[in-house]
């Protein structure tokens, strides 16, 4: 198992290096544009060349990549070309904000989706229709609209929660909870819509299988059948959907972050891409690939725990 984890992490590192190198190649073609953008409308070819030289952007791309890599291995991801702030801590701070809305949203998504999916599959009838209706509603209502609606109701009208901004957990736990509540609710509703349908479908399949019938004839309670057997078997595909949901939330966090003015990873990545902030783009790419690798690995390990047949020998 340890060698499997080491191998997967090693693959992740190679993948990160490759992705960052490709990013480097793509960005390498636009350094002059970025230098001009930094200098503004008064930029001249001379001042542009001077800035490129000062930043080291006039060197060959492989040399720049190597230098970046050597520094990155030592934890130095460079500085933003616009703000001069170190990229590593900035990305980590931004990621912490985004994860602090995504992780609670995912946990709530799992709890609600499993409850709804199991209830719907085991009860059928009206329960099934209600669960499907809720799931469909989650699909149909756009997240952005929902976000704005909740802000207007809970922040602007009732003034229960803040409309914008983020309070770090360490500064003020209650303030933190208040600042993430609406974003988490919005993300959870979208996640539940996806996952409930998956859990419901898999549970219906499992509950129709022969082993369930056998367990019932032996007098095993319905609760035990669902919790100990059917849900465990239905869990693997749901887990895969959940990991995809995480990656989707990470990518789609931009919209939520913009509406709530959260200083998160999505808006940081978006602005860096717009401005062509090269060190930030590279740092975000490296952190992003690392995160996705870890999430995929965790999903595989969780799958192995749920389903012995999926375990790595």
């Amino acid at each position: 198992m340890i060698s499997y984890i080491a191998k997967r992490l090693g693959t992740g590192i190679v993948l990160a290096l490759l992705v960052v190198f490709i990013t480097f190649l793509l960005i390498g073609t636009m350094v002059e544009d970025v230098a001009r953008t930094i200098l503004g409308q008064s930029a001249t070819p001379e001042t542009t060349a001077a800035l490129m030289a000062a930043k080291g952007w006039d060197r060959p791309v492989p040399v720049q990549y190597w230098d970046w890599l050597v520094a990155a291995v030592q934890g130095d991801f460079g500085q933003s070309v616009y703000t001069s702030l170190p990229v590593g801590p900035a990305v980590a701070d931004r990621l912490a904000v985004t994860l602090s809305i995504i992780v609670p949203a995912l946990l709530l998504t799992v709890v609600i989706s499993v409850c709804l999916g199991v209830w719907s599959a085991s009860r059928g009838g009206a329960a099934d229709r209600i669960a499907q209706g809720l799931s469909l509603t989650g699909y149909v209502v756009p997240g952005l609209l929902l976000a704005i609606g909740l802000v207007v109701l809970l922040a602007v009208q009732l003034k229960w929660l803040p409309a914008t901004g983020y309070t770090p957990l360490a500064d003020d736990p209650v303030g933190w909870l208040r600042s993430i509540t609406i974003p988490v609710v919005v993300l959870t509703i979208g996640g539940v819509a996806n996952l409930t349908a998956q859990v419901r479908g898999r549970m219906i399949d499992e509950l129709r299988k022969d082993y369930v019938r056998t367990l019932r004839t032996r007098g095993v309670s319905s609760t035990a059948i669902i919790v100990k057997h059917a849900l465990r078997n239905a869990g693997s595909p749901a887990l895969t959907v959940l990991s995809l949901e995480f990656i989707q939330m990470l990518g789609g966090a931009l919209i939520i972050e913009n509406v709530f003015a959260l200083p998160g990873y999505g808006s940081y990545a978006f602005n860096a891409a717009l401005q062509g902030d090269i060190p930030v783009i590279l740092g975000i790419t490296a952190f992003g690939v690392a995160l996705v690798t870890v999430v995929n690995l965790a999903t595989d390990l969780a799958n192995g725990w749920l389903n012995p047949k999926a375990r790595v020998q």
Partner: protein
Amino acid sequence: MPTTSHRRGAAAIASAAVLSSLLAACGGQDSSDGSGATELALAAFSGPNSLDPAQLVDGQQMFVWSSILDTLLARDYETGELIPNAAESWEYNEDGTELTLHLRDDMTFSDGDPVDAVAVAATMERNRTTAGIVQVKYGAVQSITAVDEHTVTVAFTHNDPQFLPNLALSTGAIGDPDTLDDERTATDPIGSGPYTLDTANTVPGTTYVLKKREDYWNADAYDFEKVTVRVLQDPTASLNALQAGEINAATVQAQVSGQLDQNRFALQQIDAQATAYLDILDRGGEQWPALGDVRVRQAINYAIDREGILDSIMAGVGMATTQIYSPYGEVYDESLNDAYPYDPDKGRALVEEAGYEGTVFTIPSTFLSTSYESVLSQAFEDIGLGLEWEAVPPQQAQSAHLSGDYPLSFQVTGFNSPEADSVSHFGASGYSNPRGYTDATVDALFEQINSTVDLEEALPSYRELNAYAVEQAFEAPIVFTGGLWATADGISLTTTGASTISTVRLFDVES
């Protein structure tokens, strides 16, 4: 042993406790929209890229950096005139190759050190020699000398009419010479401005908290003890924050301004902050001969329904225009706006007369142009020409404009000063004129402008240049884009548009 129901009860109590603490916290929220406010919390589209004097960006980034770093000159918000600030007076020599600045003698940095000529000269010299956005504005500067404790002279290779007005912007920011080269300068510099950065409560890129310096030489001119600048790029977030009382000043979109409670917020419209225009890049017709023909350029001006664009795209916030100079300035000529009434038939006739009907131009499609593209395409079709928009990513928009690959470009440019705006739009090295097109008349007018040190004396030349540029249709100005400021009760705007430099003095406490 607790029973299940007890555990549920305990959970319910815990939930209720969390909920009540959440709601209690709501009551304790620091609202900043009360009357008589001494706190200003405003929304800005962008925080400062850097607080290093050599890397300062003007525009809304000034809200933060101009609070920390004092500038040599300032603008009067009521008249738009250049006024003394850290420099209490100034004068040029006869041919404009030497500027003498006389500094106030009562200024200090936030660490208590005096602000003197050495500090100003050191900052200027560093700006002149440090690669960055401010350096290009020092292009004509030859040397900077601290003559005595409170006098600085700046020597130029030639008269640079843009330099003086730029001293009210980033070019004139003063840094602390002892720490200028320290790492902290970019993020937490020692400055001599009216505020200091409260680093404990500032989150770079998101929220900047500024505390007033009572020892600032002009402290009485700043009404707010504390200023918070929130970076809110999304207009919906701005509106929500305003309505929720989290900020008390922000620009809002005209379309949604009706949602604001009129008893709590005052709306003030500024009609002109920038010019939206179709830039004719190949004015000499080197690569696209059609654009070298003044009839085609004029036809483009006739084809644009400026009032229609103002109403439909700008929701009426702005002004239709055929010229690029600020309507609050002295170069602007109201009568020139009659030069090109909306008349596509006349435009088509001019294109046909010139023999260029059916010509199609490729133009960069950027984040600035998207709202205007369909209406401009229609305008070109109406006069027998065509436009093909080619998508260009934001970081390449400037390069595309300057590349020589496009005959036209859509731009939105903020006002600076008559000097800077003239060079930028019509000068041989101007951003809006990347092919450096000039003719004998333009050359002669610039010669007069550049040899006249006093702006008042140069005004007739500027006005003539304006009229000539409109007649020659070097560009196709469309509208002055405006802005709608919403301020909470107790806070008012100090300008009607004469100067829109983004400093805290744009606001004051309503008396």
